[in-house]
């Protein structure tokens, strides 16, 4: 418990210091609140306007919770397919890397043209931003099996499927989870961007509304909610990792 606290307090102090400096700067330099509201203003606003924003939060949460599994699922399937079919990997892996030079978010308007304003284009957009970290991490993990263990499996007469299920797959879990954690934060971001492009509810839509009326304080409330959503999703993945990769020695620090 004590060591846990030792880890927590330095960033906590940093955040409190930052918020204090922000509050002080706004009041000392008389910054108008439509340009930069103080942390106090934002806190007050979030309490006062709570009812309206929860519906939007729920919509974004729902979108994220559909998009994230679909996106990571696609990433996993791509990784497994390319891993198990080596010639496919040779052919497609370079293209996969290249494809990441296309900014997925810039494809948003195109997706609207192709798929309309419903759920589908938003899911596709989230999938586009989510699948890549998972696919690359999973493929890396699968390909980096311990050589001695691999030799052992081969000498013991393990077939390809046994090598995959008993060595490569469990060995790739730590790497896979680092990809999943990145994707979790990307998924929330993807959902918000999808709502910017075309939606009638959600945090992204709420931000557009508030922008139109220069309610900067409410935009900050939205940002705080987005951060919290990302953190919760990240924490859930980390928890799952802790349970599934419980065999890994703890870092001694």
């Amino acid at each position, binding site marked *: 418990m004590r060591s846990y606290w030792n880890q927590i307090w330095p960033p906590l102090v940093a955040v409190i210091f930052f918020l204090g400096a922000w509050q002080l700067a706004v009041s000392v330099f008389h910054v108008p609140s439509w340009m930069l509201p103080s942390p106090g203003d934002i806190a007050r606003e979030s309490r006062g306007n709570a009812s309206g924003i929860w519906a939007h939060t729920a919509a974004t949460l729902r979108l994220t919770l559909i998009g994230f599994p679909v996106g990571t699922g696609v990433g996993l399937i791509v990784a497994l397919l390319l891993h198990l079919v080596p010639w496919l990997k040779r052919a497609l892996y370079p293209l996969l890397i290249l494809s990441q030079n296309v900014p997925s978010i810039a494809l948003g308007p195109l997706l609207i043209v192709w798929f309309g304003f419903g759920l589908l284009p938003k899911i596709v957009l989230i999938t586009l931003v989510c699948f890549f970290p998972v696919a690359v991490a999973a493929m890396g993990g699968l390909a980096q099996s311990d050589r*001695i263990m691999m030799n052992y499996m*081969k*000498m013991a007469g393990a077939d390809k499927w046994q090598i995959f299920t*008993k060595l490569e797959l469990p060995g790739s879990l730590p790497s896979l989870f680092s990809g999943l954690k990145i994707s979790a934060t990307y998924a929330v971001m993807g959902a918000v961007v999808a709502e910017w492009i075309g939606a009638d509810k959600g945090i992204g839509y709420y931000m557009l509304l508030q922008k139109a009326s220069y309610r900067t304080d409410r935009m900050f409330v939205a940002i705080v909610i987005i951060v919290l959503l990302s953190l919760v999703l990240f924490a859930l993945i980390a928890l799952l990792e802790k349970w599934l990769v419980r065999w890994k*020695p703890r870092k001694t620090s």
Partner: protein
Amino acid sequence: MTRITDAKHEGAVGSSPDGSRGWTGGGQAEAEQADAEQAGTTRMAGPGGGRTEAEQAGAARIAGVPPALEVNSVTKAFFHRRRETLVLDHVSLKVEPQEFVSIVGPSGCGKSTLFHIIGGLEQPDAGTISMNGKPVTGQRGEISYMPQQPALFPWRTIEDNVLLAGELKGGPRAEARAAARHWLDKVGLGGFERAYPHMLSGGMQQRAAFLRALLAPQELMLLDEPFSALDALTRSEMQRWLLELWEENRRSVLFITHNIEEALLLSSRIYVFSGRPGSVLHTVEVPFPRPRREEITESPEFLQLKRQLSQWMREEQAKAAK
């Protein structure tokens, strides 16, 4: 070197003629073992005990029972930057059923390559491998292997690690689990069945890796410098442990080591390898009776053999340095 048979010193050691091992049979053989131990004689590895090693080996030879492993004139070269390096040069050796055979040689003598060839990971350029009279050149899954590092699977508990080889071959699970429990207890890993490998010390991990090889369904065990990563004290403890365990449960073993004393203590026969390209320089029949105790390492005969082997090794190292 003459072969001084250690037959008359042997206790009751035996196994069923088909080479199957007793411990998977469970309760009864164990009870017999316990009785035998109390009576101060060597334990039996299985039913049909009472014959001596030499009688058995002799009978086997006369009856034409083929060796557990026969490496016949194996040659292997590697290509690196278009230059051919000969690694193994007409290596021939054999391991009789229930015999402990060692290979000693300078580093880079191709011992690991030989293991890879026997294990089927690599094809020899020339020569053949056969086990129990059956040609198995380039075939995998015929041997039970213990690598230099324990290489236990970190996501498996100790018990599941020990069961791995059997699992790959697909045997009855419940029986295998019971046998694993029994053996873990026996080698001092009782209570660690559900622990993960990183929680164990190096010596304990090595014992678990040895059990994984011992409980594998394959008869022939290949041990690749299993103790080289351990500190000196743990190492000599593990040597004693292995000696005792092997004398109880005769398996056909091919053992690679750098350590001459270790080879003399454990084996019935030692192949001394030359430096690169690896080939068999000398074959030494080790004359000490079994069951062996560590005290033999102080006998004049042992020291003399050790001196002889050390000298051969030094000559090889010197040649390699030139």
